[in-house]
């Protein structure tokens, strides 16, 4: 699967000093936030080189999050599909049940060093909200989580978890009442409370330095996969697959492999009812570049530049934009982006549960569904790594309802 797009070193080259990944990314916010974002970028770059900070982060990842997460060979499922050896990067086994905590642990340490006493976050499925509330509880910081009113209805268990952890969950009633509106509201909070408040963005979107910072905190996933592949399989994987909403678990897996042209990279967007129906959340597959939430990236928008409503079975992928680095990886040809529909994701959810005894998140199930198409096209001597980004406990209500069962 040699990729001719990889002709130069990509790692460490992007973004530029003002946050650009080629034509994407950047800093599109109102003036009030420009100086605070520059401060954040400076602090981040400083602590990224600070051995004490890195040691504390590493210690937290090991003893609080539970890293490294295993790379598990899904034997039965691989045999069933009849192709590549499938390996699952078990981010679902992290504390709080998803990859999100890798980033919140990092940003919370940064918040404390910057002297901030209050944490705010946006959340879609609730995983990032839970991961933010968790680190805030541990560090004794006040925490407010903004969540779309529609998402609060479909993820009630996570809402309760956040409240147990001491966070205040604010229902966002504006716009489409989902993740994008939660992000708007968190940004409004931040602009009003920027002196004492640290905004933990949960994905690789938002204004610079968030896309780069979140990527760097999540890249522990790909770095571990590299080491584990070399140790367990004796070589690098042939292909990587991850689901993409904002794209943080995907970039975390992909980034350390960008300079390996023989590793094929696939990002899987939420096709909803089908990309052709318009009811989906797949900006890379069916959108066009625009500016939202502080960065330039592929967006779902109408022909007059208004952001379009999205649809996905999974709240965590129900977002009209995507991290700017993904937009750039798409245009450069280094990564391939595809979409799978709600039905296909749901099937993969059931399959993995029954065949491997692992209940995956509905977000993750999109990556699994694409793997069921990709694996049979690969040889038995080839390896396919899927980022099992989160566990599905939070989704059993949704799945039961779709199956016509009331719990």
């Amino acid at each position: 699967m040699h990729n001719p797009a990889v002709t130069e070193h990509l790692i460490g080259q992007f973004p530029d000093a003002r946050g650009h990944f080629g034509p994407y990314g950047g800093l599109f916010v109102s003036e009030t936030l420009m100086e605070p974002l520059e401060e954040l970028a400076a602090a981040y770059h400083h602590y990224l080189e600070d051995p004490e900070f890195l040691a504390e982060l590493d210690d937290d990842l090991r003893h609080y999050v539970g890293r490294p997460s295993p790379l598990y060979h899904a034997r039965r499922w691989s045999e069933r599909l009849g192709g590549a050896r499938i390996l699952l990067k078990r981010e679902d086994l992290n504390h709080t049940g998803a990859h999100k905590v890798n980033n919140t642990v990092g940003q919370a340490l940064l918040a404390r060093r910057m002297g901030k006493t209050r944490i705010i976050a946006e959340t879609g499925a609730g995983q990032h909200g839970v991961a933010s509330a968790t680190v805030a509880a541990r560090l004794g910081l006040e925490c407010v989580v903004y969540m779309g009113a529609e998402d609060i209805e479909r993820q009630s268990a996570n809402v309760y978890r956040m409240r147990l952890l001491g966070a205040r969950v604010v229902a966002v009633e504006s716009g489409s009442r989902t993740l994008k509106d939660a992000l708007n509201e968190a940004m409004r909070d931040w602009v009003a409370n920027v002196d004492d408040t640290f905004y933990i963005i949960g994905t690789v979107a938002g204004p610079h330095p968030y896309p780069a910072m979140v990527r760097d905190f999540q890249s522990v996933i790909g770095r571990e996969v590299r080491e584990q592949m070399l140790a367990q399989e004796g070589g690098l994987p042939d292909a990587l697959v991850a689901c993409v909403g904002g794209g943080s678990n995907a970039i975390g897996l992909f980034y350390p492999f960008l300079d390996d042209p023989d590793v094929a990279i696939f990002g899987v967007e939420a096709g909803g009812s089908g990309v052709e129906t318009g009811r989906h959340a797949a900006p890379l597959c069916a959108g066009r570049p625009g500016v939202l939430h502080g960065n330039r990236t592929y967006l779902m928008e109408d022909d007059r530049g208004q952001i379009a409503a999205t649809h996905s079975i999974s709240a965590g992928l129900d977002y009209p934009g995507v991290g700017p680095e993904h937009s750039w990886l798409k245009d450069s040809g280094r990564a391939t982006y595809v979409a799978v529909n709600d039905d296909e994701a749901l099937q993969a959810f059931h399959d993995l549960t029954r065949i491997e005894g692992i209940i995956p998140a509905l977000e993750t199930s999109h990556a699994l569904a694409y793997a069921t198409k990709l694996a049979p096209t690969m040889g038995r001597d080839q390896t396919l790594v899927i980022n099992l980004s989160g566990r599905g406990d939070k989704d059993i209500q949704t799945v039961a309802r779709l199956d016509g069962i009331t719990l």
Partner: protein
Amino acid sequence: MSRIAAKFSALGPRKALVTFITAGDPEPGVTVGLMHGMVKAGADIIELGVPFSDPMADGPVIQRASERALAHGVGLVEIFAMVQEFRRRDADTPVVLMGYLNPMEAMGCEVFAAAAAAAGCDGVLTVDVPPEESAELVGALRSHALDPIFLVAPTTSPRRMGAIAGQASGFVYYVSLKGVTGSAALDVDSVARKVTEIREHTTLPVGVGFGIRDAASAARVAEVADAVVVGSAIIGCLEASLGDTARGVADAEALVRSLREGMDAAVSVAAG
């Protein structure tokens, strides 16, 4: 001389009253009449909000105005028609469009600027475009003699102020507080300090907005700034009478009149 510069130079000792409404709110038929009505009540410059689905820098009042306008399908094309109609009876009052980048870019910066100028607009304030990202948009605006208006915030450093002053024309818009539009925590002393600082970097007039909601606060800001910008309070009048548009418009115009009187009284006291 641009219409904005001409307006400021014609003011004499008076301070400019800049009134903001969202185009198409509460319904498209109201906007042009309200623009004329506000001018008659004492507004010097009209800011027309371009509705956007994700108004990140706006408080709840302007968010809801944006949603009402979008529900009526109001976008840039309709707004250009409104400005064109306004210009038939008013050749002097500057009109500034205020909005977010994505709808402008979706039209194409060049096409947008050409159409805005042809319709009779005078300036454009794009909330989510700082000077660092403004090259394409500002180039297009300038080539059509439109003034790019930029924000300065309480957090803006002297270094950034210099960069903003280098890009801005028309006037500089100082955001009087850390927060979204319609917040209420105006601190006139700190506004006065910051306006003095801004004047070290530019000779452009300095307008102050965010958090000014009545004649008293407008009067206090008029003592320290060249222009006073009021938005959410005017839209609040329209919103309070959604079932009775005529009454909402009358209330909005009455508010503009009282802002005008408050500002003029403050300035004449200061001069006397």
